[in-house]
């Protein structure tokens, strides 16, 4: 079921980071947005919830391309069919989700510390914030992957992607904001909410793997 996973994963990383890459553009957007939001707020004492909201909304919207791009590009250029003739859809899907997760993590680990610093948060909480970022990026990637796949099968382009993605990731996004704000305020992580987002993203992943072979047969 996962044959060729490593090979596909390496190919994903290569195609996503080269040339006019989706990764470069998304990282650029995340960086520019972080700066654009932080600069005007330089002298303002912000509530931790506001900071957490800014961090995760910026990260979510700037990385939408990462989660969709690899699926839609592969479908549009027809190479998806070539891959399908040689390996299983599950292996293709998982390799893409894994590559997207890594790229999202890189973007998160660059932009979140920057925003935390720019928005005047005490550096002491940074390690905990980074831990939350890793969990958050993982959960967001796992749950956005399947919608990226669905949209590529829908052949609708990426314009409406934020509208279609948001309902699926909303519980994760809101939970992440609550978790992060509590970290910024008290330095503690709410384990309950971490359990919620991890189990939701795993549930979506399992559902994706169940639906995937059926969709491949039906469409």
């Amino acid at each position, binding site marked *: 079921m996962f044959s*060729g996973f490593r090979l596909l994963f390496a190919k994903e990383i290569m*195609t996503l980071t*080269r*040339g006019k890459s989706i990764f470069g553009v998304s990282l650029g957007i995340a960086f520019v947005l972080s700066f654009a939001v932080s600069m005007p707020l330089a002298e303002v004492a912000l509530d931790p919830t506001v900071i957490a909201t800014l961090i995760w909304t910026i990260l979510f919207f700037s990385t939408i391309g990462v989660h969709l791009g690899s699926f839609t590009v592969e479908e549009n*250029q*027809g190479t998806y*069919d*070539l891959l399908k*003739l040689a*390996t299983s859809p599950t292996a293709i899907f998982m390799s893409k989700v894994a590559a997207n997760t890594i790229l999202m993590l890189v973007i998160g680990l660059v932009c979140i510390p920057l925003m935390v610093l720019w928005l005047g948060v005490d550096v002491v909480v940074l390690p905990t914030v980074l831990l939350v970022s890793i969990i958050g990026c993982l959960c967001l990637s796992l749950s956005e992957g399947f919608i990226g796949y669905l949209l590529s099968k829908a052949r609708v382009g990426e314009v409406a992607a934020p509208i279609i993605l948001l309902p699926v990731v909303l519980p994760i996004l809101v939970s992440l904001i609550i978790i992060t704000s509590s970290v910024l305020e008290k330095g503690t992580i709410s384990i309950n909410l971490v359990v919620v987002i991890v189990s939701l993203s795993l549930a979506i992943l399992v559902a994706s793997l169940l639906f995937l072979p059926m969709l491949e047969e039906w469409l």
Partner: protein
Amino acid sequence: MRFDRNIVFGDVSCDFTQRLSIICGANGSGKTTLMKILSGLVNPTSGKITYTPGIANIRIGFDSPYIHLYPDLTVREIMDFFSRLKRIEKYDLREWELHKIRHKKYKNLSSGFKQRVKLAQAFLGNPDLLLLDEPEQHLDEGGKNLLKEKLSQREKMIIVSTNNPESEQKIVLWL
């Protein structure tokens, strides 16, 4: 086969038993769709395809004009990737005269060489069934000769679709 209420084609019944079969048809007659069905990529709306011996045991080589390979990978990387994916031990870029351009990115190739890379990819590992959709597209004389040579050397089954049949070819199916 139909998309919504548009019937692309129906009543196609054909045995592909010869080594080389040619499918012919005008633009929009459903050649590519039929090729996709024959490769098992698309399920027909109604009807059935039977492979001997079973699709799971057949290695398929496929090329079609709608396929564009990875623009930012070099020719070598593309061929390496597909050969490893198809679990093929070795291949020779010289076969399609690609060795001189192996370090060039696919997006920087001329359309003729792009077509050669695609064909090389389809021919990789001498697949049991080779489905070529308009394989002569963009090829220069040299490319066309190479293709003819490769096709004539092959002993396993080939199905080619074209809208420009040469008189000496025997057409199996008109769409």
